[in-house]
């Protein structure tokens, strides 16, 4: 069974600084996808970034980037130039390619960006 672990329940960062959220996962699959979802106070779950396991290059979306270490089963999210609007819960999630349709989520990290 796949598991996703986020070891940081809460984090805070000053506006304009950089913060890294950690995520580790466990799977025996070789083909899968990893995600970071953002859940702001409005509660809508929004996809921030996606990484295909077969790609060695780390995904980047504007200020958001990941450090994907497949051998270590680690998938951290770096937010550069943090903005107040980045304040949210961040969930790391895993999805097997093909087969099961479900996303497996971590418990989340509550990020607060301070002015």
């Amino acid at each position, binding site marked *: 069974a796949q598991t996703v672990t986020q070891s940081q329940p809460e984090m805070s960062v000053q506006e304009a600084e950089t913060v890294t959220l950690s995520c580790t996962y466990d799977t025996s699959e070789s083909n*899968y996808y990893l995600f970071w979802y953002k859940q702001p106070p409005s509660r*809508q*779950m*929004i996809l921030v970034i996606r990484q295909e396991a077969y790609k060695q290059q780390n995904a980047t979306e504007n200020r958001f980037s990941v450090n994907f270490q497949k051998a270590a089963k680690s998938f951290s999210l770096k937010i550069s130039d943090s903005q107040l609007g980045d304040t949210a819960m961040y*969930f790391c*999630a895993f*999805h097997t390619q*093909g087969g099961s349709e479900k*996303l*497996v989520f971590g418990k989340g990290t509550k990020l607060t960006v301070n002015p």
Partner: protein
Amino acid sequence: EPEVTQTPSHQVTQMGQEVILRCVPISNHLYFYWYRQILGQKVEFLVSFYNNEISEKSEIFDDQFSVERPDGSNFTLKIRSTKLEDSAMYFCASSEALRGDPLMGYTEAFFGQGTRLTVV
């Protein structure tokens, strides 16, 4: 921008009562999902639904739960006899195709804003 909408945003119900949580998926999406998040816990998969039938369900999705697409636009989750431990946020999601399909590539699942269910 199209979005998944859920109603109500908050529902309070007495233990033993039936509740129906409603979702309107994005109109051209074919796959629908329910997830739940007990306070302070992980977001957990409940069920996926395609072509008017359940395509996958978790061990949480027992006989007290059911899903339905009653009219071609709504997607509902019914909890027949609520228990205190059913208190949670329930998220609906939809996607255009099976996510991670080897032929179609990855298609994103879009989530609703959730319904907070409180069983008292």
